[in-house]
């Protein structure tokens, strides 16, 4: 065979034990501490994301329970106002930033290459880096508790209360620097998902054959690339105002407090879609498996996903209706906020139609997905109510909005996620989750959640403002608050049962086999858990449902998952074209690499230096980051980045 420097002719074959052994040796993460730090395996990173996000969920949940005790009755004194303010701020930050997106990134990291029929993400090292920076920024923000100075201005952190004259401690600096740090993680993660989708697909997986979850995550990743700079900048300017006396938000020098709100909501409203669209994607992909049919209106649901994200950039002002915005501008944003409901309505009707025209399998994941639909609608219609300016002027900043955001975050995100965990747990671990415990946890979560948060709408209609650490006894809020507290504890017990189920089933669950649910997509074509290289030969697909297509009679030709390209000359995967997914190149994938971790360490040191204003420490860390980056990116022959290397 001729030695070719720049190209080669790949062969197609069926897997053999020898091939699998060879691939295993190539792709396996080395054991030991080095492997643990250096791994770039998307499955390992995905699981880390999921576990870390759940740890943050538990932390945020405990914060919530303590607050619910304080609010159970009027004039309680379990918490001081300062403690309460830090708890509600960290609860929001934790759930919205450290749980809601990372948990979805966990699914996406684990599943993207498997769903797409690839061997890894486009940038495996960047993937590891995105996890490490997420973890480090989360710990950075949480370390504020150690010195009793956690962020205390809520997750939306309005200036000027966040400025130094009103908030002299380190509280806001932790939040500002922590969010800039966290922004690095989400940005590189988003870029990685987008490039992976564009480049790493099985031959034949044209864009009209992508699973919806892929569409959801890709859409929000593009959205994040647009939106994330707004919040990083907002926090950077806040930090500048605090440390260097600039006047962005500070009225004294001509600054504008509302600039913060514009920059923040330009980011934070799209963010709401960022943390629900992939969850909707999970449901759109997994619900049909339990209805034994493809999703109804695939194309419309995808168009709805994209439309929602696009419109999501045009409604940020509806968080600011009470700030004295001109009439015309309010009318526009109010109208846009109504219209954005329509694409979501499409998804709801698609799910219902899928249930109606399918044959239902009553397994635990289905319970979560079916409940999800109702919770989705409750969170949706309460959102519509706040789109109406006169209604919003009453509803905003009351517990009605708190109830709304929890139906969005728990009802849409958490229910989708829990259903997704039950659904993919067999793929993650090779074991089924217990159906019996699963149903107990479902009912506890479902009942607890609704007992806690449905009456909370009434609390809001009774005029209870959000973010108050206590309330008097003569305003009619006592009973509803007590009910919510009881519900919160039922919900927490359900989460506990769920966690027990995970632990028990992982140890002694029923063996799952490659495709326990008889599901249609590529991740079920490989063993459970998948080998480090995902697929021994590169699968090619000819339809949206490669494992169902014989029974559905769809697509052109046949998908081929048992015979495909053999890529075993080092860590290799296939690059395909953006729209049609025709093979265009063989990509060399990097080995395990400690630099993502080391650069993260340097960044953590740097942000700590900025926090405590040891500028030399920040400067030193910056130099370390530059050196680390250069080493990381040093052109390497084995990655096909350097002249003179031969392949084949």
């Amino acid at each position, binding site marked *: 065979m001729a030695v070719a420097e720049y190209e080669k002719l790949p062969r197609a074959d069926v897997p053999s034990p020898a091939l699998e052994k060879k691939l295993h040796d190539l792709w396996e993460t080395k054991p030991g501490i080095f492997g643990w730090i250096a791994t770039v395996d998307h499955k390992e990173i995905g699981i880390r994301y999921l576990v870390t996000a759940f740890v943050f969920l538990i932390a945020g949940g405990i914060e919530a329970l303590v607050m619910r005790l304080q609010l159970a009755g009027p004039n309680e004194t379990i918490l001081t106002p300062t403690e309460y303010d830090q708890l509600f701020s960290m609860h929001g930050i934790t759930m919205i930033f450290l749980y809601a997106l990372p948990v979805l990134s966990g699914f996406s990291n684990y599943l993207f290459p498997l769903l797409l029929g690839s061997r890894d993400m486009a940038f495996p090292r960047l993937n590891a880096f995105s996890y490490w920076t997420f973890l480090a920024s989360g710990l950075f923000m949480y370390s504020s508790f150690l010195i009793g100075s956690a962020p205390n201005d809520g997750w939306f952190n309005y200036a000027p209360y966040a400025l130094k004259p009103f908030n002299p401690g380190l509280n806001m600096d932790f939040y500002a620097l922590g969010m800039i740090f966290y922004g690095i993680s989400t940005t590189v993660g988003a870029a990685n998902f987008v490039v992976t989708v564009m480049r790493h697909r099985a*031959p034949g997986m044209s864009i009209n054959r992508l699973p919806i979850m892929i569409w959801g995550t890709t859409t929000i990743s593009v959205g994040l690339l647009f939106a994330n700079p707004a919040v990083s900048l907002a926090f950077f300017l806040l930090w500048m105002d605090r440390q260097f006396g600039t006047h962005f938000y500070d009225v004294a020098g001509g600054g504008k407090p509302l*600039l913060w709100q514009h920059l923040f909501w330009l980011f934070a409203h799209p963010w709401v879609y960022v943390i629900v669209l992939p969850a909707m994607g999970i449901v759109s992909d997994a619900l049909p498996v339990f209805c034994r049919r493809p999703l109804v209106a695939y194309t419309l649901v995808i168009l709805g996903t994209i439309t929602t994200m696009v419109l999501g950039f045009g409604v940020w002002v509806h968080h600011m209706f009470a700030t004295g915005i001109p009439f015309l501008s309010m009318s526009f944003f109010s109208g846009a906020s109504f219209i954005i409901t329509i694409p979501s309505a499409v998804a709801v009707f698609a799910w219902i139609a899928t249930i109606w025209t399918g044959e239902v399998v009553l397994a635990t994941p289905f319970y979560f997905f079916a409940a999800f639909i109702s919770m989705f609608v409750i969170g949706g219609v309460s959102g519509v109510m706040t789109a109406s300016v006169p209604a919003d002027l009453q509803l905003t900043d009351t517990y009605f909005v708190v109830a709304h955001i929890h139906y969005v975050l728990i009802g849409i995100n958490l229910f989708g996620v829990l259903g997704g965990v039950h659904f993919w747990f067999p793929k993650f671990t090779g074991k089924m989750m217990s159906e019996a415990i699963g149903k107990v946890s479902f009912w506890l979560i479902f009942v607890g959640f609704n007992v806690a948060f449905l009456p909370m709408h009434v609390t809001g209609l009774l005029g209870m403002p959000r973010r108050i650490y206590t309330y008097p006894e003569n305003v009619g809020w006592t009973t509803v608050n007590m009910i919510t507290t009881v519900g919160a504890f039922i919900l927490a017990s359900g989460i506990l049962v769920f966690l027990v189920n995970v632990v028990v089933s992982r140890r002694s669950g029923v063996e799952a086999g490659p495709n326990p649910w008889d599901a249609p997509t590529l991740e079920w074509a490989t063993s459970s858990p998948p080998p480090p290289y995902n697929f021994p030969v590169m699968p090619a697909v000819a339809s949206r449902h490669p494992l169902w297509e014989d029974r559905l009679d769809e697509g052109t030709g046949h998908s081929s998952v048992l015979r495909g390209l053999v890529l075993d000359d080092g860590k290799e995967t296939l690059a395909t074209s953006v729209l049609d997914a025709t093979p265009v190149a063989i990509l060399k994938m990097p080995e395990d690499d400690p630099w993502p971790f080391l650069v993260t360490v340097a960044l953590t040191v740097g942000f700590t230096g900025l926090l405590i204003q040891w500028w030399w420490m920040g400067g030193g860390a910056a130099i370390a980051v530059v050196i680390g980056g250069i080493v990381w990116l040093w052109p390497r022959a084995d990655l096909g980045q350097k002249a*003179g290397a031969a392949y084949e």
Partner: protein
Amino acid sequence: MSDTAIEPEEPLTIGRLQVGSIGRHANGWWGMIMLIITEAFLFFYLLFSYYYFALQSTGTFFPADNPSFRYSGPETGVVILASLAVFFGERGGRKGSRLQLVLGLLAGLLLGCGFVALQAFEWLDKPYTLASNSYGSSFFTVTGFHLAHVVVGLLMLLPLTLWSALGYFDRQRVVPVTIVMMYWFFVDVVWLMIFFTFYVTPYLR
């Protein structure tokens, strides 16, 4: 609809495939596009803040004198020349001329340093500071963000020049240079936006 699916037991229909990072087939090329998109939005939000101040503060925002072109004019020329130099080097790399590649990158490096120096003069020339008022804060922050991007561009050019001199690249394997060139074009465009915003629009009031 593509028909590239591999039929079982049928001969392979795929021809020879490129291996590794080459041109637009390199993931890094796509990664730089992503970086440029998100950075473009960063500058969009920065300029949004400036225009927000300009529109919301009735008459009190701008300094008394319109900004001078004394340094900003030459800066505009230098930053455009810098990216043209990198472009020249990249063309050389693609032709297989290591000399042209290294010379282009070196010229880019020097011109980039020239821009940094001019920016230092421009900053020292201002009667206001970062902490004077929101105009000063905007001016120094926005130009500072751009300057930081120029510095990052220089930090990319430095090892790239070294790698080029060491003969790491040839006609095919030259995509790191292409990627850095794209970044320099972006830094250029951003400068033109900043130049228009801070130096030209005050005259249009």
